[in-house]
């Protein structure tokens, strides 16, 4: 069955194409990108006044299955991803059981096949059970389908284990994604340490808990020559360390999350547990540093860190609430609202940071539009204004600090392998 996307503005970050064109899709692949294609047999999708871009790629999400299906399932997260314009997502290994062996990888891939919506790429754990003690079977994890390794949620506190993980992953040929947090500095903290935590009487997580670990891991990557990707960079000093490391040709990349460049720690002022996230929302100065990093390329890509939690888990006192914010359904709009409309990035640059660039960070064959490529395509209305509503999330969870906010831009159709998986009426 053929699909023909007509009259859209086609933006492809890889070829730098930006022109009005049609895209013809057959058998799940892009057959032609050209002006005025006609094909009587094809289903027509009109994209007039819309942009047509590579399906978005999120390299940092928590799908919660297996183990925490009451928060999210592969199916519900896939629907959320599709609604957010994502066609490819990488899921973190802090499931139960942990993604630290072939069996769990195969379970996830098989559940994703049943869900049948998006491309799902598991990330294996660096260490068994995320305990930071013994390496997982990194080779076997790669062979069974993992695309990177991470103990996300913690740092590998033991520097020797981290060094060996980097060396071994270099041999295996996959990057290590590091959640940077020196636990002895962060322990017990629930929000950014600073004036707001002083006023609220909440224990702070100092930015230096992140930066000492960013510095350590950069040095280990430099020493070993391994590929390091730093997850959810949240503060100025981390951006500076990574900028310098890149100048020194260390093989390091990094991501930042929409909530970190949108909200400061002032959002915590009324103790809304939906603002509790790790790393925490930082200061306005940190936001400015993130924006500079996004603009000058220090920050390679935007990732959601989609972290669903059930309402009952978040509906507790701030100290006791779990860390995490859902992001799949708001990331694109936050990118357009906070980065494009505020002239930090062009729409072309934003699309690159949400598709081609994250795909390249993890070496995925996604995130571009060209002949014979898989027809993973998102059609976006960059002008439409909408209000984030609690009841409209397709994710199983509702833990978003953006509920009630007006945002600009949304996916109007999401296509995976030539099949429309999301298209609201």
């Amino acid at each position, binding site marked *: 069955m053929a699909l023909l996307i007509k009259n859209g503005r086609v933006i492809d970050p890889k070829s730098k194409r930006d022109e009005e064109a049609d895209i013809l899709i057959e058998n799940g692949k892009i057959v032609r990108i050209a002006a005025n294609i006609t094909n009587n047999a094809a289903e027509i999708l009109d994209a007039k006044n819309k942009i047509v871009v590579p399906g978005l790629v999120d390299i940092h999400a928590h799908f919660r299955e297996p183990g925490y299906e009451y928060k999210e399932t592969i199916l519900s997260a896939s629907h959320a991803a599709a609604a957010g314009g994502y066609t490819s997502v990488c899921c973190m290994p802090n499931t139960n059981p942990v993604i630290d062996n072939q069996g769990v990888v195969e379970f996830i891939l098989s559940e994703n096949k049943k869900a049948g919506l998006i491309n799902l790429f598991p990330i294996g754990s660096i260490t068994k059970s995320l305990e930071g003690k013994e390496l997982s079977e990194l080779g076997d994890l790669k062979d069974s389908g993992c695309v990177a390794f991470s103990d996300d949620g913690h740092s590998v506190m033991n520097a020797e284990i981290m060094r060996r993980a980097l060396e071994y992953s270099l041999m295996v040929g996959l990057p290590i994604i590091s959640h940077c947090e020196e636990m002895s500095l962060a322990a017990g903290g629930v929000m950014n*340490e*600073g*004036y707001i*935590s*002083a*006023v*609220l*009487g*909440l*224990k*702070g997580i*100092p930015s230096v808990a992140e930066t000492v670990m960013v510095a350590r891991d950069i040095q280990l990557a430099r020493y070993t020559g391994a590929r390091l990707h730093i997850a959810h960079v949240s503060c100025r000093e981390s951006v500076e360390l990574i900028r310098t490391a890149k100048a020194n040709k260390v093989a390091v990349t990094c991501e930042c999350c929409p909530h970190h460049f949108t909200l400061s720690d002032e959002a915590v002022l*009324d*103790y809304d547990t939906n603002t509790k996230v790790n790393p925490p929302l930082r200061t306005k100065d940190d936001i400015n540093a993130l924006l500079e990093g996004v603009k000058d390329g220090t920050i390679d890509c935007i990732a959601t860190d989609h972290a669903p939690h059930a309402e*009952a888990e978040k*509906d*507790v*006192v*701030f*100290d*006791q609430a779990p860390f995490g914010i859902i992001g799949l359904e708001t990331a694109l709009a936050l990118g357009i609202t906070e980065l494009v409309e505020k002239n930090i990035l062009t729409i072309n640059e934003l699309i690159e940071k949400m598709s081609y660039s994250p795909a390249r960070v993890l070496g995925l064959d996604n995130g571009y539009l060209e002949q014979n490529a898989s027809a993973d395509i998102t059609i976006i209305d960059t002008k439409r204004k909408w209000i984030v509503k609690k009841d409209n999330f397709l994710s199983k969870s509702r833990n978003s600090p953006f509920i009630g906010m007006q945002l600009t831009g949304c996916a109007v159709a999401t296509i995976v392998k030539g099949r429309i998986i999301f298209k609201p009426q």
Partner: protein
Amino acid sequence: MEEWTRKDLLGLQELDSKEIELILQTAASFKEISTRAVKKVPTLRGKTIVLFFFEPSTRTRSSFELAAKRLSADTLSIATSSSAIQKGETLKDTFKNIEAMQVDCIIIRHSSSGVAHVLAKCMGPSIINAGDGCHEHPTQALLDIFTIKEKKGHIKGLNVSIIGDISHSRVARSNIWGLTKLGANVTVCGPKTLLPKDIEKMPVKVTTDLAEGMKGADVINVLRIQKERQKAGLFPSLREYAMRFGVTTEKLKNYAKEDVMIMHPGPMNRGIEITPDVADGKYSVILEQVTNGIAVRMAVLYLVLQAGDDEQQEQQ
């Protein structure tokens, strides 16, 4: 007189100076009741007040309970060990059940900052914060301010120093907001490790030198040092703490004004943050603070419950 419109008392940060003055004036008029032979007026007859204390407390709890009883309210006291929280019920569910019993006011103490704020948003009855984590303890600060005003005649222009563990002190935070709103100059003084980061962005002077903290002070409020902070690595030993930050007669003589007034929210570690001769000496108003606590809490109960009534009448 200004009108009181708040259903809840959650902290002093959100009050303006007129509201604080109103509480102080109301407290002054209630203070005399506790000196009568029959220490009771019918003001809150028929009101039900629940005291929900999730942390141990002698002073604050008995002070609130006596305040309620002297206004003829019915009180119910719940301690965590006997509550359904122990059986896994969430805090909100517990409070929704208490609310369903048609009570008028809930006084809550909890070890987590923000609890009173969160409950006030979803509950009908008045919520009074009797101390939430390291955040605020508004009635303690109000009774401190009431005592200062009673002794010194005014607040504006006074120099008040708060000495000790500022990081973990809800008493310090409430005092900072309340005193500065009324025009006092507040200095906080303690070990660098017990001063929160960015404290200097609050309207206070900050010092780690006790002599400087005492200098020119009209009032010194000495905070309790909790021994577990030493175990957490925040200062080397109680001995060194007492030497550097303990308030002694000798240090007062050397650095403080002659008519300095010494306060302590209790319970005291005698010989550590304050020596017994200071605690019991001529500068000390520590027991008067306790007496005034009842009057201040009577005032707060009266005001919030009256505002709650007004709100209900408007809805009808």
